[in-house]
């Protein structure tokens, strides 16, 4: 049973083509992420051959120790990864009004077998503690969060709450 079809002129409707192109453009515009590098920034200490040990008063230090299985000690007290932020925040806040040479130093020390991920999580917690303290301080004094402050005020907040993170070398590096 073959029915004969009347053959019509075939053509593609082209009026909607522009719309389709426009939709595609929109789709790609929305879906593309312009690759920006994000991460946790740090400044390493300068390389010196003879390491001098500088004594730092105990109440200035927050010593963070991470062992190979990812357990964390903060000032010799076991602590879970997610509590680091809150504990540190209180300590940072208590030192806001102290002079610069008495601000908190957070020291991070890992084992050589610690996973990189664990280390980054700990650093993240520390950074979060600092950022949140900065935000709260700027909110209380200038009514804005740190990011929205003008540059000179950001500087003041920065000098009040400087981020001092000391990366201690794993034991076996020292030899």
């Amino acid at each position, binding site marked *: 049973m073959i029915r004969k079809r009347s053959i019509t002129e075939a053509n593609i409707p082209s009026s909607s083509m522009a719309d*389709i192109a426009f939709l595609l453009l929109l789709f790609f515009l929305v879906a593309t992420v312009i690759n920006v*590098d994000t991460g946790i*920034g*740090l400044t390493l200490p300068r390389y010196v051959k003879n390491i001098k040990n500088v004594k730092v008063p105990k109440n200035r230090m927050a010593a963070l120790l991470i062992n190979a299985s990812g357990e964390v000690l903060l000032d010799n007290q076991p602590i879970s990864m997610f509590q680091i932020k809150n504990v540190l925040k209180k300590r940072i806040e208590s030192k806001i009004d102290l002079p610069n040479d008495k601000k908190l130093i957070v020291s991070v020390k*890992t084992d050589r077998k610690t*996973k*990189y991920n664990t280390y*980054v999580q700990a650093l993240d917690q520390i950074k979060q503690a*600092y950022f949140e303290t900065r935000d709260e301080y700027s909110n209380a004094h200038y009514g804005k969060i740190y990011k929205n402050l003008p540059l000179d005020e950001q500087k003041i907040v920065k000098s009040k709450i400087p981020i001092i993170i000391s990366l201690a070398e794993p034991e076996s*590096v020292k030899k």
Partner: protein
Amino acid sequence: MKFVKRRANAESGIPTESMADIVFILLLFFMVTTTLRKVDVIVHFTLPKAKAIEKIENKRLIDYIWIGRSGRIQINDSIVKMNQIEPIIYRKRQELHNVIISLRIDVNTKMGEVTDVQQELRKADALRINYSANVKL
């Protein structure tokens, strides 16, 4: 058996008016999918996730060091050994004195290796680093 050639009677022609649009779409597609990347990343890695993340606005300053799942280290286009890092980075720092070294390290890398790389960076006096991480939601 005979093959009977059957031809359609309709006029066959490709509509050319839409050609411009098609080309336009293709152009768009390629423009969008092309990533301007200088180097091929040979090593495989998964970046860690973190919340307190900063963006590096100035892409020109960044140089990458990759450490892959297998523990191989890549700078530029090649796999390097630990003792080769210092001269390479030192040269980079001479060209660009405020270079930021972005460390793209796999989550399961041991800290020992990371520290060794950092020691090399310190020796090369490239002190600004960035632990590359993705945003944790």
